[in-house]
């Protein structure tokens, strides 16, 4: 992916908003890559976790909010546990989801789930996905 860094993007407010919602310091990350190495979903992501953090540092709002990756994170907390700088990556990714959801841009359209699935899938999964994917 080619991205263009600019002062405007860095100062756009996206970086500080993500940090505020997660109560984390994005700048603590020094790109060791441990989060992506242990992430059970990294193989399916268009942007792996360590790159999501770098893009967030640079204010790349569009690249992040339009990515599949923010919705693939399941908050399993493996990255948080292994980060040598104590950055809570899962919280930062949750912030990005929240920015979308608070603008009413749901990721899951519940009404499209087939009735057979609604019966077969236990409430723990359905409620979990609604909590993570809908506003």
């Amino acid at each position, binding site marked *: 992916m080619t991205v263009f860094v600019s002062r405007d993007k860095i100062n756009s407010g996206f970086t500080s908003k993500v940090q*505020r*919602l*997660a*109560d984390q310091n994005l700048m603590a990350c020094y790109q060791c890559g441990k989060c992506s190495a242990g992430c*059970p*979903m990294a193989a*399916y992501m268009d942007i792996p976790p360590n790159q999501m953090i770098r893009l967030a540092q640079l204010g790349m709002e569009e690249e992040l909010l339009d990515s599949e990756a923010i919705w*693939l994170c*399941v*908050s*399993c*907390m*493996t990255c*948080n*546990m292994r980060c040598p700088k104590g950055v809570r990556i*899962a*919280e930062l990714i*949750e*912030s990005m989801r*929240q920015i979308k959801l608070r603008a009413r841009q749901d990721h*899951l359209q519940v009404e499209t*789930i087939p009735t057979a*699935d609604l019966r*077969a*899938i*236990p*409430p*723990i*999964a*359905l*409620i*979990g*996905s609604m*909590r*993570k*994917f809908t506003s």
Partner: protein
Amino acid sequence: MKLSYFPGCTLKNHARNFEDSTLYAMDKLGVEAVELDRWNCCGTVYSLSTDDLMRQVAPIRNLLRTRERGDSQLMTGCSMCFNTLKRANNRARANEEDLASMNDFMYDEPVDYAGDVDVLHVLEVVRDQIGFDAIRERVVKPLEGLRVACYYGCMLVRPNEAAIDNAENPRVLEDLITVLGGEPVDFSHKTECCGAHQTVDKPEIIADKTYDILGAAKAQGADTVAVSCPLCAFNLDHRQEATLQKHSDFHTMPVVYFSQLMAIALGGSESVLRLDLHHTPPGPLLTGKGLL
């Protein structure tokens, strides 16, 4: 010993096998689990945003129900309920202002929550309050020759503030299986995520996870995988059909709750196991080992 008990939504339907076997085992071990009168959904996942205090109200209400009973401990078996209740409680305890805001949202509650209820997982009660020695004495049908891969998933061990054991190499389930007379196997994937709620719209990812996790168990010679989370159970058991469709060399394997193994060892009949709720039937394996 009496303990307030929070079942959670899924233990009342899809995971009835988890609830029935847990209550049977607890009863056999002298613990009377008293279900809360008016419990509500815990919210399933802990809210990670700093300003999302409204989402903490659902778990905290259950702690208020516990207090109303005059109890200061709440036990639950579901890993996700445990994690959500425990983390919401931790947050309430750590920040007075947050707790005040949560109480403001619950204007209809006659009493404020004061952070004075402890959230316990069944496995903590088993290890710390009942004790493995007491369990060993009550085993009437040892799980002889049963090789078990113990699967913790995420919510029992992460993050540290809500973990019941070491995050990278937990032992409590292995210790329990040993006391029950079974053989725990070394298991590389014991804390590897199963894919969780992606099962709703991306079952193909779960198929890969189930293939990896059960494959690792099989490679260690495990007969079955023991779990403590109804979502892990669904993904590892009920998604085996999708796994087989995607990976033709996949070998199906029965997945059970740790509580079902406890119930068997403590003398429970087949009716408390509710084996009809499983996708890959554990019946043939258990019969073959002389455990049914």
